């Protein structure tokens, strides 16, 4: 196993999640393995009235300051995470060549909260009362646009939309931009803030949410035999990516290197994963081949692990089939819930931290699993991980697998 010249270094991380307003607090919360799900007053009266929200103490609007008024919450979360990631990478937007900095931020549901509000205004008060901000607050590229504007990043800037894989797709696209030489720095990640009554109820109507209304904290239980759905959440994760040789040249330490990407589609069903997991399996095998690695090299999987009956069953079978040697498996969704389009990026950041620190966080609410997997339960596990795969799957049959190795400049 060798690091390839196509390695992309993760030189900065930023997260704003239900576990905390920054990467360090999020990492600590995920390591503790305590669920963040709680009753949600904004969902009062809905069939599912609990969620995982970013704590009020980490209010992104307050941290952004003056310009926050025009930003939809999903963009606010991304801007805060992007600022953190850029500072963490030791980059200074005042001095960098902004034309060589790309921004790729995925989102699953973008500004739907504003569409809901403005639809009500239209019907209740008339067309004159519809906000001029509706369209810019609704469209999914607003997060990338605001990050670009906030940091003076003037290279390519775009959104990715692959539902719950959007954040992972953003990292895959950013990697390609770097490898193509289109940019020298990529600020990439995912964001979502769609915990609204309509969207939450929509997921409920699909049968995707946990119905443990008497036990919100125990509701998200990836890979448990008695799992019954995911818990809706909000958050953002942003990573700074650079070509490994560039990071090395400027003396930056890499959390981990992104060395392989696999992207496939199930072509099976709008929302259900293919029962045989063929798309997910192909994504995993493709990512490993892209990295020049073999399945037996993988010693850790940061699973998509949503806690839905179907995802976890199919994903467990894929892991057991492709990686029968039993790498450690975790899912952060027991702690954070499902942050939708942010999940792939948050989990990539957590995977990078696992590689950096040699710590695999436990799966919350899981005592033991019925699947033939080495799930980390109870407490975090010390493990010197060399190769890790991070899985993300989305409605529409999107499968994205990112393979990371310990950074060559770590």
């Amino acid at each position, binding site marked *: 196993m060798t690091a390839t010249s196509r390695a992309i270094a993760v030189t900065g991380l930023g997260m704003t999640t239900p576990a905390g307003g920054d990467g360090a607090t999020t990492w600590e919360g995920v390591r503790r393995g305590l669920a963040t799900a709680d009753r949600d007053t904004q969902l009062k009266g809905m069939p599912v009235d609990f969620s995982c929200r970013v704590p009020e103490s980490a209010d992104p609007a307050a941290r952004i*300051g*003056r*310009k*926050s*008024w*025009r930003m939809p919450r999903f963009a606010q979360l991304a801007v805060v995470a992007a600022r953190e990631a850029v500072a963490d990478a030791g980059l200074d937007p005042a001095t960098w060549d902004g034309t060589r900095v790309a921004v790729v931020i995925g989102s699953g549901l973008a500004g739907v909260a504003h569409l809901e509000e403005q639809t009500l205004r239209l019907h209740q008060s008339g067309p*004159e*009362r519809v*906000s*001029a*901000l509706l369209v*810019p607050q609704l469209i999914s590229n607003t997060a990338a646009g605001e990050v670009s504007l906030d940091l003076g990043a003037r290279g390519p800037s775009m959104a990715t939309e692959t539902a719950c894989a959007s954040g992972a797709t953003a990292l895959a696209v950013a990697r390609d931009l770097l490898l193509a030489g289109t940019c020298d720095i990529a600020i990439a990640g995912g964001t979502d803030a769609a915990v609204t009554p309509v969207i939450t109820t929509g997921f409920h109507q699909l049968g995707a949410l946990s119905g443990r209304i008497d036990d919100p904290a125990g509701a998200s239980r990836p890979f448990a035999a008695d799992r019954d759905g995911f818990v809706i959440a909000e958050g953002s994760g942003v990573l700074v990516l650079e070509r490994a040789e560039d990071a090395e040249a400027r003396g930056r330490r890499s959390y981990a290197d992104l060395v392989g990407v696999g992207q496939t589609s199930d072509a099976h069903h709008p929302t259900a994963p293919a029962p045989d997991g063929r798309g997910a399996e192909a994504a995993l095998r493709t990512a490993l081949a892209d990295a020049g690695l073999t399945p037996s090299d993988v010693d850790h999987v940061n699973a998509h692990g949503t806690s839905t009956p179907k995802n976890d069953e199919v994903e467990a079978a894929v892991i057991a089939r492709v990686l029968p040697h039993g790498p450690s498996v975790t899912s952060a969704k027991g702690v954070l819930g499902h942050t939708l389009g942010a999940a792939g990026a948050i989990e990539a950041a957590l995977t990078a931290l696992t590689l950096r620190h040699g710590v695999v966080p436990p799966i919350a609410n899981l005592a033991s699993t019925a699947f033939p997997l080495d799930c980390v339960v109870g407490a975090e596990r010390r493990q010197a991980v060399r190769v890790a795969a991070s899985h993300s799957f989305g409605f529409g049959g999107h499968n994205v697998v990112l393979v990371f190795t310990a950074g060559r400049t770590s």
Partner: protein
Amino acid sequence: MSSTDAVLFDLLTTKFNVPEREITPESTMDELDIDSLALAELALALQEEVGARIEDHEANKDTTVAQLTATLAAKRATAPVQ
């Protein structure tokens, strides 16, 4: 401060995060960082709070707080009760 002044002051500080110390009768919208998008949103908010509609030609980046207040007050005096 008249009630119209107070409404405008309150909107500028709470909705648009303008620091109180920056707001004087002579401050222009541009100086307060109220750009065209913000102005559209401010006009909507004023319509709801004061019941007077500021038309596009009645406010721009060079409009001062005093001018906007006067426009609002005049409209309010002649506006039908909503």
